[in-house]
C-alpha cells in the first residue's frame, strides 16, 4: 500500500501492519463504534440518575415500587452466562475445533440472549400493566430510554447471531465469517459490560 493512500496523520507511524490486515482494521473500526455507543449509554445513565428525585417521580411509582430483585438476578445470570458461552465459541474458532462446536456454543449464546429478552419483556409488560408507562413521569421516561435501549442492542445482537449461524451453516468458517463473528463477540461482551452498569445503577441502586 502506498503512503499516500493512508490518512495523513497515520503516516507518521512507521507501522503498516494494520494496512495489510483487513480483519484487524475492521476490528479497530468496530472499537470506535462501540466507544461512541458507550457515550450514548453513559448520557442515558446520567439522565436516569438526575431523574431519581421525588420531584421526577411526579407522584407516580418509584424504583422500590417497580423493580424486583429476583427478576434482575435472572436477567443478569442469563446475560453473564451468555458472554461466557460466546467466549467458548471464540475459542472453538481460534483453535479449529470444528464448525459444529462453534455453532453449538453460538446457539447456546442465542438461547441465553432470548431468555434475557423474555425476562425483560415480561418485566416491561408488568410495568405497563400497573400504569408505569414512559409518559407517566420523568423518572419512567428516563428508565424506558435506558433499559430498553440496551434490550434493543441485545435484540440486534441476537439477529446478528442468527445471520452468522445461517452463514457458517451454508458456507462454513470462511475468513469473512470469522472476522464478522469476532466483531459480534466484541459487541456481545460490550453489551454485558453495559448491563453491569444497568443492574448496579438501576436495579441494585434503586432497591438499596
Amino acid at each position, binding site marked *: 500500500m502506498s503512503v499516500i493512500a493512508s490518512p495523513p496523520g497515520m503516516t507518521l507511524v512507521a507501522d503498516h501492519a494494520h494496512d495489510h490486515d483487513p480483519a484487524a482494521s475492521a476490528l479497530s473500526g468496530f472499537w470506535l463504534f462501540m*466507544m461512541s455507543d458507550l457515550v450514548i449509554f453513559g448520557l442515558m445513565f446520567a439522565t436516569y440518575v*438526575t431523574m431519581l428525585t421525588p420531584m421526577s417521580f411526579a407522584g407516580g411509582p418509584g424504583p422500590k415500587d417497580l423493580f424486583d430483585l429476583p427478576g434482575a438476578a435472572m436477567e443478569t445470570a442469563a446475560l453473564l452466562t451468555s458472554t461466557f458461552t460466546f467466549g467458548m465459541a471464540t475459542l472453538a474458532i481460534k483453535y479449529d475445533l470444528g464448525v459444529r462446536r462453534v455453532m453449538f456454543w453460538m446457539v447456546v449464546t442465542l438461547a441465553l440472549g432470548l431468555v434475557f429478552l423474555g425476562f425483560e419483556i415480561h418485566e416491561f409488560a408488568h410495568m405497563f400493566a400497573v400504569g408505569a408507562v414512559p409518559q407517566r413521569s420523568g423518572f419512567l421516561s428516563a428508565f424506558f430510554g435506558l433499559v430498553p435501549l440496551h434490550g434493543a442492542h441485545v435484540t440486534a445482537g441476537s439477529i446478528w447471531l442468527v445471520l452468522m449461524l445461517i452463514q457458517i451453516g451454508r458456507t462454513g468458517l470462511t475468513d469473512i465469517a470469522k472476522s464478522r463473528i469476532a466483531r459480534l463477540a466484541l459487541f456481545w461482551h460490550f453489551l454485558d459490560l453495559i448491563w453491569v452498569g444497568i443492574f448496579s445503577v438501576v436495579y441494585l441502586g434503586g432497591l438499596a
Partner: protein
Amino acid sequence: MSPQKQQSRADAYRHDLRGYQMGFALAAILTIVPFALVAAGTLSMMAALWTIGVLGLVQICVHVRFFLHVDLSPEKREELYLMIFSGSLLAVMIAGMLWILFNMYTRMM
C-alpha cells in the same frame, strides 16, 4: 503437525480457556456479592450504594480484561487509549450534568 507443536497448541488452548473461566468466576462473585447485600438489606443506604458502585467498577475492569481482552500490553495500547479517552470524555459530561442538575434541584427546594 509435529507433536511439540500440537502440545504447545493444547497448552495455549488451556491457557485461553482458563482466562475465560477465571473471568466468569470473578464476574459471578462480583455480581452475587452486591445482589446478596441488597437482598439482606443490612447495610445503610449510603454504605450499600458505595459498595455497589465500587464492585460494579471492579467488575467492568474484569470484563474488559478477560472478555474484551484489553490489558496493559503494547499490542492493546490503541484500544486501551481509546477506552481511556472515551471514559474521560464521559466522566466530564456525566459529572458536569449531575453537578448542574442537582445544583438546580437544591435551588428549587
